[in-house]
């Protein structure tokens, strides 16, 4: 009887801990201080997907990637998060679309380094939860 009581208490405690973890664990974020899995120019990343999307998806999706590129456009998504469109040249085609975790002062025409989680390719290679790294 004592054992059953103890087991019941343990189950309840585990249940409460599981509930608290599910309820209050923070979402996944990109940390500027942590090294990226890959670092490359915007064009190299775009070309990797363009050349072989299946292979590039396996290699890069879900990974933290740091890309360098020129800002073509600064906009906001429907959640209010700032988005950046990057290219390899000031007059180049869009190559990278990045959504930032927090607002940045990056301007159109500026060369920036953005680190974020690669989620795949649509019109451009997409980075989510991005941070703009300062030199």
């Amino acid at each position, binding site marked *: 009887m004592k054992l059953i009581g103890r087991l019941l208490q343990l189950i309840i405690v585990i249940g409460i801990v599981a509930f608290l973890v599910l309820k*209050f664990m923070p979402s*996944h974020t990109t940390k500027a201080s942590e090294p990226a899995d890959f670092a490359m120019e915007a064009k190299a990343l775009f070309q990797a997907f363009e050349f072989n999307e299946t292979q590039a998806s396996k290699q890069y999706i*879900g990974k933290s990637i740091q890309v360098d590129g020129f800002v073509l456009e600064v906009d906001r998504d*429907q959640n209010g998060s700032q988005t950046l469109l990057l290219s390899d040249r000031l007059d180049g085609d869009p190559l990278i679309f990045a*959504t930032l975790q927090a607002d940045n002062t990056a301007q159109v025409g500026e060369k920036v380094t953005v680190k974020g*989680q690669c989620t795949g390719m649509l019109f451009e290679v997409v980075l*989510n939860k991005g941070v703009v790294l300062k030199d």
Partner: protein
Amino acid sequence: MLTCKKCLGTLCVLLFTLVTLFSQDYSCRTGHVHILSSTTLMDVDADNYQVQSRLDASTGEVSFVGLSKSFEMKSGALDQAFNSKYVDVSGFSKFQYNGQISNLDAIDFNTPGNYVFKVSGILSLGDYKRRTSTNGKLIVNEDLSIEATSDFDIIIEQENVERINRILKERLSNYLSFSSFGISRTITIDVAFDYKRK
């Protein structure tokens, strides 16, 4: 001969200009898709703000495409698990919708106002395809940009629910150990797009 070539060149330029001026292509890079699947244990409640879409106002063709890994889960624990670099989404990395507005005549894309549209199409995720039909709201703004919203329920066959839950357990089992985690038969999908004319 030279005069003919000149005429042909001028005609080509004129045609190109006319097509560009009267083009009714719209695009959006920051569309929003929200999905909700309720189970007895927990809700799978996720948002994707990186959905790209195209709308051809002259033909009524509408499409959107998004990436599975761009979904952000409302539950922090699920989000951490799903966004782990080790969770493999190959085979399901993209979802896509290709549809057709059936009441195009009822919408004037050059006149600001609120319109109701009817759309039918096919939603795809990996090799899973589902034909859907639904209504939506379309707002033509003063600057002739467009906002479109719609929602639909997908009811998944039981064998596909079991298949999807099996895949989820295989790919997420290192991070989640609830035996009853999974999706329900009904998934509610809300979409919203802010289009700009190309």
